[in-house]
C-alpha cells in the first residue's frame, strides 16, 4: 500500500492504479450488459419477436348465424331475427354535448337519464366503451333514434341475432331451446371454439344437432393494445364489424382481411308441422303422446306430447318467471317429452309382439286356439290370473285374441314361448333399448328377463332373484316390470307393417336411415296383420274389435289397443263404476295403429295418460290423425305470413 502524503492538494501516488481498476470494473459492467443484449436479441431474438407478434394482434370473433330449422314441407320452424340494442359511445360524442345526448335519449326511449349519465361517468376512463341504452328495441324506438340521428352523435344501433321459434308450443319440445353455455359444457367443448357467454343448444334438436346448426365463426385480426377491448358494431344488414376504436380510444388497424363467418347448416326435418299441430290439438289438455312414423323409412312425421312448452320462453329476455316455472319440475312436467323420455307399461300393445314371436318360432300357428274361461290358473302354486273379460272369450285363436285382446290366450302363449324367446324377440323389435332417434335424453325402457331380474334384485334372497312362470305371465300381456316409451311401440308397430324390419326413427331428413335384418317372416306378419285388422274393422254387432273406433271405411287401418295398469284389476273392483276411480289411478290408454294400403305407410302410437281404455280414449284419435293425414291435410301457408310479419 502506497503511503499518502499529508498535503491535501497532492494526489497520492496510488490514485492512478485505483482509477484504472475502477475503469476496469465499469468496462466489465457494460460488457456484461452487452452480453445480455446479445443473448436476448440475437440468440433468443426470434422467440421474443414471436411473443411480441402474438402480443400485437388480437383476434376478434364474428359469430356465425345459427342454422334454420324447416319442416318436411319447407315451413320455417326456427330462425334468427335481428335483436337491436341502442348503444351510446361517449368517446364518439363531443364532450359538451354528452349530457344533452343522454337527456334526449332518456326522453326518447323512456329510460332513466340519471342512470345513463352515471354509467357514462363510471366509464370515464374508457370513453369508447359501448353503453347499452335500451336492449331489444321495438321498431318505433329504432325509427325515433334514426330520425334524430344528427342530434345524437355517438348513438348507434347494434344488432345481434336472436333465436326465433315460429310455431310456439307446437313441436317446442322437439326443437328444444338455447341457453347460455355452462361451465361443464364449456370445458368439454372448449376445443370446438366455445367461449363463455356463448349460446348453445340445451335440449331437443337444438342440442342434438348443435354442431350442424352452429356454423363456423369468422374472425378479424386487429391491433391489440395492452389495455382496451375491441368492440363490435353492426352494419345496416346486421353484419358485425369491429369498431374503429377500442374501449380506451386506441385506433385499431386491420392486420389481415377479415374471415367472414359461415352460417350454420339449415336443418330440414321429416316433421310435418301441420300434422304435429293437429296431433297436439287432439291431445288438448290431456297428458299424453302421439307418434306418427313413416313405417318404411323411420321418418318421424309427428311426435306430439302434452303438456309442452314454448321454446321462445328460453331465448327471450325478461321471461325469467316463466322459465323458472317450466324448470321447476311441476307435474305433469312440460319439459318431458312423453313419447321418448317417459316409460309406461305397454299393456295389451305388447300382445302384438307376443303373437308375432309365437308365430315366428312356431309355438302356435294361425289355427292354434286356447280356451278362455275368463281366468287362468298356473298348475304349480295355483295362483290365478284373470282375463279382462270376466265372462271369458271361449275358444280363441291368435286372430281373435288380437282382435278382442284376450289375456288368457297370451298367458298360454307366453308360457309356451318362455321368457328367453320373448326377450329375444322383444329386443329384436327394439324394446329395452333406445330407438336411436336423433334427440337427446331418450329413455331405454325395461324389457325384463332372467338376467335383468337377477341384476335389479341383486343382494336380495335367491328366491327374489329367480324368474318365475308368473313373471312370464305378467310379461305376456305387457304388465309387470315391462316399461316402454310410446316411440318404442311405434317402432314395433312399424316393424309389423313394413315387412318385419326394425327402423330407426329420425327427425333430420338427412340422418342416415337404418334398417335391421328382417325379423319376422311374411307368413307371420300376414297373420298378425289379419288380427290387427280385425281389431279395427270388426264392428257391431258384438263382439266388435277393441279398436273399432279407429275404423275408416275404404282404408285399411290396423291397430291394437292397450291399457297400462297403474294398479291391479282387483282394486278396480272396489269402485262401482269406472268413473268413480280417481284420475291418478286410472289406466293409461294405448293405441298403436298402422295404415297399410296408402303411401306412405304410417305407424302410429297414441298414449293418453289416465285415459282408462285404449278403445275409447286413444283409438278415436288414431282415426282423426289418419283421416287428417290422408284426406284433409292442406299445405300450410302460414310461414309466408309469419315471414311477412317479422321485422
Amino acid at each position, binding site marked *: 500500500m502506497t503511503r499518502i502524503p499529508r498535503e491535501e492538494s497532492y494526489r497520492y501516488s496510488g*490514485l492512478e492504479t485505483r482509477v484504472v481498476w475502477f475503469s476496469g470494473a465499469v*468496462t466489465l459492467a457494460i460488457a456484461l*450488459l452487452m452480453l445480455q443484449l446479445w443473448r436476448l436479441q440475437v440468440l433468443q431474438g426470434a422467440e421474443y419477436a414471436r411473443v411480441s407478434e402474438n402480443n400485437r394482434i388480437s383476434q376478434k370473433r364474428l359469430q356465425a348465424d345459427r342454422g334454420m330449422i324447416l319442416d318436411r314441407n319447407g315451413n320455417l320452424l326456427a330462425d334468427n331475427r335481428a335483436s337491436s340494442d341502442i348503444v351510446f359511445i361517449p368517446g364518439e360524442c363531443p364532450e359538451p354535448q354528452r349530457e344533452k345526448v343522454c337527456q334526449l335519449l332518456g326522453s326518447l326511449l323512456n329510460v332513466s337519464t340519471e342512470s345513463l349519465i352515471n354509467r357514462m361517468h363510471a366509464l370515464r376512463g374508457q370513453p369508447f366503451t359501448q353503453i347499452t341504452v335500451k336492449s331489444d328495441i321495438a321498431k318505433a324506438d329504432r325509427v325515433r333514434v334514426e330520425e334524430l340521428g344528427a342530434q345524437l352523435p355517438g348513438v348507434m344501433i347494434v344488432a345481434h341475432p336472436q333465436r326465433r321459434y315460429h310455431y310456439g308450443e307446437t313441436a317446442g319440445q322437439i326443437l328444444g331451446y338455447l341457453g347460455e353455455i355452462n361451465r361443464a359444457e364449456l370445458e368439454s367443448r372448449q376445443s370446438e371454439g366455445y367461449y363463455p357467454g356463448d349460446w348453445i343448444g340445451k335440449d331437443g334438436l337444438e342440442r342434438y344437432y348443435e354442431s350442424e346448426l352452429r356454423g363456423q365463426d369468422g374472425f378479424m385480426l386487429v391491433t391489440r393494445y395492452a389495455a382496451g377491448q375491441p368492440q363490435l358494431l353492426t352494419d345496416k344488414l346486421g353484419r358485425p364489424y369491429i369498431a374503429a376504436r377500442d374501449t380506451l380510444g386506441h385506433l385499431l388497424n386491420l392486420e389481415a382481411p377479415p374471415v367472414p363467418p359461415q352460417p350454420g347448416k339449415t336443418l330440414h326435418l321429416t316433421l310435418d308441422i301441420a300434422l304435429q299441430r293437429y296431433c297436439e290439438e287432439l291431445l288438448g289438455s290431456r297428458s299424453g303422446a302421439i307418434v306418427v312414423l313413416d313405417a318404411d323409412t323411420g321418418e318421424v312425421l309427428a311426435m306430439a306430447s302434452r303438456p309442452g312448452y314454448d321454446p321462445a320462453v328460453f331465448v327471450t329476455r325478461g321471461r325469467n318467471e316463466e322459465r323458472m316455472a317450466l324448470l321447476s319440475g311441476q307435474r305433469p312436467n312440460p319439459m318431458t317429452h312423453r313419447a321418448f323420455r317417459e316409460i309406461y307399461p305397454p299393456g295389451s300393445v305388447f300382445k302384438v309382439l307376443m303373437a308375432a314371436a309365437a308365430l315366428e318360432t312356431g309355438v302356435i300357428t294361425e289355427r292354434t286356439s286356447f280356451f278362455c274361461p275368463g281366468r287362468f290358473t298356473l298348475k304349480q302354486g295355483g295362483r290365478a290370473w284373470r282375463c279382462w273379460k270376466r265372462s271369458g272369450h271361449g275358444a280363441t285363436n291368435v286372430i281373435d285374441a288380437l282382435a278382442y285382446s284376450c289375456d288368457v290366450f297370451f298367458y298360454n302363449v307366453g308360457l309356451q314361448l318362455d321368457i328367453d324367446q320373448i326377450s329375444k324377440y322383444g329386443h329384436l323389435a327394439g324394446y329395452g333399448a333406445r330407438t336411436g332417434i336423433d334427440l337427446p335424453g331418450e329413455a331405454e325402457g325395461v324389457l325384463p328377463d332372467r338376467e335383468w331380474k337377477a341384476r335389479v334384485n341383486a343382494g336380495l334372497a335367491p328366491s327374489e332373484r329367480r324368474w318365475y312362470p308368473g313373471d312370464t305371465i305378467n310379461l305376456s300381456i305387457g304388465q309387470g316390470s315391462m316399461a316402454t316409451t310410446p316411440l318404442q311401440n311405434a317402432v314395433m308397430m312399424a316393424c309389423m307393417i313394413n315387412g318385419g324390419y326394425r327402423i330407426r326413427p329420425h327427425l333430420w331428413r338427412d340422418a342416415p336411415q337404418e334398417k335391421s335384418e328382417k325379423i319376422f317372416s311374411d307368413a307371420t306378419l300376414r297373420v298378425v296383420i289379419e288380427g290387427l285388422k280385425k281389431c279395427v274393422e270388426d264392428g257391431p254387432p258384438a263382439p266388435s274389435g277393441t279398436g273399432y273406433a279407429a275404423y275408416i271405411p275404404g282404408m285399411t287401418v290396423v291397430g291394437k289397443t292397450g291399457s297400462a295398469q297403474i294398479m291391479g284389476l282387483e282394486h278396480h273392483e272396489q269402485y262401482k263404476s269406472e268413473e268413480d276411480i280417481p284420475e291418478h289411478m286410472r289406466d293409461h290408454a294405448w293405441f298403436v295403429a298402422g295404415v297399410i294400403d296408402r303411401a306412405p305407410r304410417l305407424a302410429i302410437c297414441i298414449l293418453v295418460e289416465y285415459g282408462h281404455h285404449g278403445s275409447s280414449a286413444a283409438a278415436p284419435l288414431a282415426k282423426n290423425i289418419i283421416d287428417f293425414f290422408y284426406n284433409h291435410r292442406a299445405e300450410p301457408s302460414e310461414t309466408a305470413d309469419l315471414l311477412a310479419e317479422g321485422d
Partner: protein
Amino acid sequence: MAGTGSLQVQYQDITVRLINPKRLKYLDWALLLAVAALACVGWVVLYSASKSSSLEYFQRQIFYFAAGLGLALFLACLDQRFLVSLAPVGYVLLIIALLGVLFFGSEAKGSERWLSLGFIRFQPSEFAKLGMVYFLAWYLNKLGPRIQKWYWFLFTFVLAGIPMVLILKQPNLGTAACLGPITVGMLFVAGCRVRHLLALALIGLAGLGFLAWEMAGFDPNVEQEPRTFFDLKHYQKKRIYAFLHPEADPQGSGWHTLQSVVTVGSGRLTGKGWMQGTQTRLNYLPEYHTDFIFSLLAEEFGFVGAVITLALYLAFLQLGLRVARDSVDMSGALLAAGVVAMLGFHIFTNIGITLGLLPVTGLPLPFLSYGGSFYMTTMAGVGVLLGVSAWSRLARATMAVALTGIVARPGNGKP
C-alpha cells in the same frame, strides 16, 4: 491576482475567483461530445416514445437539456474546492430536508419523495446523491491517509448511512441504493485498504443471505411481518419476488420484467425501426418514457443500436474517470470518481433491470429517461466533471508556464 469586480474568496492560503468564465477555455471537449451524443440518442428515442402519447415530453426534455447544459457550464466555472469546503453545511441541510420529507412530504405512487416549499416542489433525495459526493470528497480529503484505519473506514459508512436510511424510509430504494456505490467507489479511489472493502463485501453477502431468508416462502398474496431488520414494504418484496419469478404472475408485478425482456428481445439484431416499436406503442410496456426507455431503444434500433448506446455510455464513464485520474488535487479526483460511480450505477442498474438482470426499482437512465429532476442531477454531475477537469488543466497550464514557460498540452496527465 484577480481583476476587481469579480467575486473572490479566500480559500485556505490562496485567493481564488469564485466564478471564472475563463475556465471554459479549458473545457474537456471529448467529455462534452460524449454528453451531446448521448443527449441526441435520448431525443431520438424520446421522440419516438412521445409520438404515441404527447410530444410535450420531447419538448420538455429539450428544455431540460438546455437548462442542464447551462447548469453544467455554470458549475464548470465554479471553483470546485470552494464548493467542497461548503459540503459539511450542505450535509446538515440535506439531513434536515430529508427529515422534512419524512414528516411533511407529499406522496407520489406510494412513496414520499416530494417536499413542497410553497412555490417549489423538489425531491431532496435527488440532491442527496450529488450532495453526498461533495460531502464525501470533503471528508475523505480531510481524512487523508487516516482512511486506512478501520475505524475511519467504518465511520464513512455511518456518515453515508444517515441519509441513506432516511431516503430508504421515504421509501426510495433506488436512490438509497445509489449512495452505496458512491461511497464504496470514493473510498476505493481515496485509497482505503482493499481488505476492508473485501470484509464489507462479505458483510454484503451475509446481508443478501438475510434477504433470502426474508424472501423465503414469500407469498405475494399474503402480507407478512418482516423477519429481519430489513424493513421491506410488501410492494418491494413483491417486486423482488416478481423478479425472481416473472412467470408466476405475468399480468401483475412480473409484467414489467417480462414485457421489458420481450420488448428488448423482439428488437433482434437491427430493430423494428424508428417509431415502429410495437411493444411500447401498444402499451405493453409501461413507463417507457422513463424507467424503461432503454427497452424502447433496444426494440426500435436492435442489438446494433443498443450496443452503440452502451459504447457511448462506456466512453462517457471512461472520460469521467480520466478526469479523476488527471485531477491535480485529491478532492477533484474524489468528486469525479463519485460522479462516475453515481451515473455508472444508474446506467448499469437501469439497463440491468430492462434486460431482466435485476429486480425492478424505480431508477432513471441518464440522458435517456424523461424527467426534469434527474436530468438536472445528471447535468450537474457533468458540470462537476467539467469543473474538475477545467481546474486541473488550468492549474497544469499555469504551473507549466510558471515552471518552464511552455504551455503544456492540457489533459495530458502526469504531473
